[in-house]
């Protein structure tokens, strides 16, 4: 599943990512697209609390893809 929160600032990228993680079907993973760097700190924190693993990839200047997968 993809979540595009480019243009949104704190706390929206994190809040929307949390909503999406909670609603994510089993076996799916979530890709969050953002251009707001502070959520590189907040999303992994919340992801860990929800049992997700985070990997962050810089895909632009400045744009990031945050991939969130349920921990096995």
């Amino acid at each position, binding site marked *: 599943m993809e979540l595009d929160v480019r*243009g949104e600032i704190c706390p929206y990228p994190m809040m929307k990512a949390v909503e999406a993680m909670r609603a994510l079907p089993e076996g799916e993973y979530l890709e969050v697209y953002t251009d707001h760097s502070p959520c590189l*700190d*907040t999303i*992994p924190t919340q992801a*860990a*609390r929800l049992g997700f693993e985070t990997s962050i990839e*810089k895909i632009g*200047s400045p744009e990031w893809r945050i991939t969130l997968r349920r921990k096995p």
Partner: protein
Amino acid sequence: MTTTTTAEPRTGPLRLNLQPGVGLLVIAAAGLVSLWAARADSQFAVFWLMGMAFGFVLQRSRFCFTSAFRDLFLLRDGRVMKGVIAGMAVATVGFTLIMSDRLPNSRLEVVAPEAHVSPLALALIVGGLAFGLGMVLAGGCISGSMYRMAEGYLGSWVAFAGIMTGLLVAAHTWNWWWRLDIGRAPRLWLPNIAGYGGGVAITLLALAGAYVLILWWESRAGLVIPLTLMTHDPAVTFGDELRRTYRAIFVRGWPAISGGLALGTLNVFLFAYEHPWRITGEISAWASALAGKLNLGLAPPPLLGVETLAGCTLSGAEGVFLNHMTLSNLGLFAGALVAALLAQEFKLRVPRKPIRYAQSLGGGILMGYGAGLAVGCTVGAFFSAVPSLAANGWLFAAALTGGAFLGTKALRWLP
């Protein structure tokens, strides 16, 4: 409990980026500005360069007073607030050394020059609540909006217009508040009653207590993520070491605690030179000067009692565009721009939802009005007031916390 989560961005294939080159050009231009400023007034050059240092650190550490307060409620995350506390602890020691040098006997009925001591008024509580709510709605406080303006956030420019408007409204209502409340309220500067040693001990103990309280609050969320390490890049050669160090400073974000400590240290430097870090007094001067220039009868009247206050007092009819604090605020913008460009984090960001503009404007007005009543923003009335050993810093912090809590409730009503 440990976690292997890493916030280390893996560098993907990137196109050649011009941003660092533009950043170097901005540095060169900033150097020319400081030469010009030094010829006009050496103080101008110092404040320009200090402003740049503040802006650079704010952008690098993504230091956000709003998230410090808001995330306590929204995430039960005290990461940024711990950075704020650490910075204030450093500044408390530094400020006390400076104040005790400038006013050796603290038991007199006076306050050390330039310490941010203001009345414990109802207006301070109202101002803190309005400011706390406004900053959460706008997604950044005043310093936060200023460095985000430099990063290319259009919403922050709208917030800044709101802040100027709110400060102008506050200047028009100041005399009413002064007669009702502010002029009669007591001021409490800890060294007057406890000496410098007692004042510094009380402040440091209270900061430590707040830190422990945050640890407890975080632990109730079940899982606490440790601080991100500075870097994971392995280094073998001298070149690797140089690259890693460059990336750690100029490319990767700093942990909030590094940002807080650096800002606290810079604040001590600025006080040693002249006075603590302040922002809103100058923005009020711009707003009042602009209102005067427009000649529409919007210029505020002369303000009662402001000459008895230090810190970020509002400007009445005497608003000006250019003084040393103008250079400090513009320097903050320039420093943040340099930091964003070197890190390749500049981008024109346009909110997609129209309601975000309304949030920025409304939040900005609330912040401007609140900062006017409270004699400062999260910087002047909090980050520079607590280390001034002034009780008003703590009262404002409590009101900000309440306002931020209201803000997190309000966010849930918005799309």
